[in-house]
């Protein structure tokens, strides 16, 4: 920048641009292919003609999926679990992170390691399954997917370091005015914490939006499925056909699968560029903390 770049460096810049174009292309290509396939005719897909854009353009697959009321039900479930779960998760993380961020609380010497230990060792799949399905009896309940992951310790640490960075003076002034800990948290801390609350909400919401394994384990009633589990069933179903025999059957499904995958990811892809900075902020906050 300051000096004349050497010839080697200029060559490097050209090569670097080519490498970056390649990365951008490879990252986006599967999405392009999926979209192209979802708008193509079955015949074109099974002939392997579709690569970058739809061949034999048709929106029949979308019509087929959207005519199907089930799809809206699954989508509705995803939205319900996502919003409710995010509310519980952000609330739970905040009320834990706040006291943990206070150095003057002596019992934090116990509670902080108590939380952090769970990042390095966990109960494992089977004890969790037994706890949720058998002991708590949450089989087929949406609590089975909202509660177990409600507080992520990683998010907890991010929020704790955010709270620790807030100016102490405001809280002290409020305490002198006679405000108690609950008032201080609700009226002073939370309004100051909008950025971290936005970041946390997005982290939890994306996690819940994409969740399929919990519902897969615990939901017997198909009506309760989130859309991710429905897409999994479509994909697996087509997969089995591919193993079996008729290629044609699997391709009828291929376009439907693609359309379902596009519809599932659409909200994330559309919203993502605008909220990306909150995710990155969250990650870098964690890094500053060390």
């Amino acid at each position, binding site marked *: 920048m300051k000096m004349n770049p050497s010839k080697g460096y200029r060559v490097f810049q050209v090569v670097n641009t080519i490498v970056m174009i390649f990365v951008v292309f490879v990252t986006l290509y599967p999405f392009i292919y999926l979209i192209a396939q979802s708008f193509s005719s079955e015949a074109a897909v*099974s002939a392997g003609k579709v690569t970058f854009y739809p061949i034999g353009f048709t929106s029949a697959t979308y019509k087929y999926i959207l005519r199907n009321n089930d799809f809206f039900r699954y989508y509705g479930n995803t939205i319900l679990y996502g919003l409710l779960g995010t509310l519980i998760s952000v609330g739970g993380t905040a009320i834990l992170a706040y006291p943990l961020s206070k150095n003057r609380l002596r019992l934090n010497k116990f509670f902080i390691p108590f939380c952090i230990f769970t990042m*390095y060792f966990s109960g*494992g799949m089977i004890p969790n399954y037994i706890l949720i399905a058998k002991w708590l009896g949450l089989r087929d309940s949406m609590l089975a997917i909202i509660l177990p992951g409600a507080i992520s310790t990683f998010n907890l640490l991010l929020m704790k370091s955010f709270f620790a960075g807030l100016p102490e003076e405001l809280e002290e002034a409020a305490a002198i005015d006679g405000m108690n800990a609950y008032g201080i948290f609700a009226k002073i801390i939370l309004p100051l914490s909008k950025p971290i609350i936005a970041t946390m909400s997005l982290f939890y919401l994306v996690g819940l939006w994409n969740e*399929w394994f919990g519902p897969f384990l615990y939901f017997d009633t198909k009506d309760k499925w989130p859309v991710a589990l429905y897409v999994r069933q479509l994909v697996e179903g087509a997969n089995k056909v591919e193993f079996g025999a008729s290629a044609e059957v699997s391709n009828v499904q291929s376009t439907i699968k693609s359309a379902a995958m596009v519809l*599932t990811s659409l909200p994330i892809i559309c919203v993502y560029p605008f909220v990306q900075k909150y995710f990155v902020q969250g990650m870098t906050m964690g890094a500053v903390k060390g």
Partner: protein
Amino acid sequence: MVSKGKKSKNAGYISLGRHVRKEWKLYTFLIIPVAYYIIFKYIPMIGNVIAFRKYKGGSNILGEAFVGLRYFKQFLGDESFWNAFWNTLRLSISYVLVRFPITLIFALLINEIRKLKWKKIVQTVSYLPHFISLVVVCGMVKEVVSLNGPINTLLASLGFDKISFLSLPEWFDTIYIVSGVWQALGWGTILYLTAMTNINTVLYEAAAIDGAGRFKQTINVTIPGILPTIMTLLILDIGGIMTSGNMQKILLLYNPLTQSKADIIGTYVYRMGISGGNFSYATAVGLFEGVIGLILVTSANKLSKIFTDSALW
């Protein structure tokens, strides 16, 4: 009240009982979340005792009778366990070996982009796969490598035979690793890029005065500057080698034809325990994996402390 609160930072100034009584309102915040941690994180840990006890699926999560190491002996003598064990190691280690350097190089290359707008585009695009549901990622993988998908179309147009990637065990590693790099590459650079922006520009200027070009500056300034980050991420990766973080992905990608190469401990535990109902046996396998994971991350941390002075704790 407030000034007393500040003094209590000096441990022992007031008794613990008085401290709790004084701060009790703040401590009440902890009740629900700590109860959550006990129920959803610590009880499952205790639930691991069924690895040593016979559990038949009832509501007594601690099982019925003590059987000692029976289940451990059983799985250690089981060939399919060892198959899953070696698959776990092979897949995780080769994934880390490929992804780790590529991510680091990619971060260094992004750091060299001079046009800010273009840099922003590259970053935004490369982070995107991180947010896509695993179900969709695996569905995409299956579409892209399917017999009439674009890769086979390309192979055919170059005159090669089409390959049924998903049903050939020897292709599983490649599919797993390449799709993993696709998912994680961009997101993995964030911490490096943050660390790079924290490097003092004076160091670069000094290096430039000493006649170092951009390449030398990268080797002598950037890399040492981000070494703590590199080590932290390496510790996490090594610690994660045995844990089944990618169990869900394999569950979505594998099939009976590729199982010999694709089955990992996580999927083995799933099949034995949840599909098969051998809860105690599967718990024993899971516990074995968890303990090795804990040992791995602890030793990686210790080694890093000794050699580079940076550690997680």
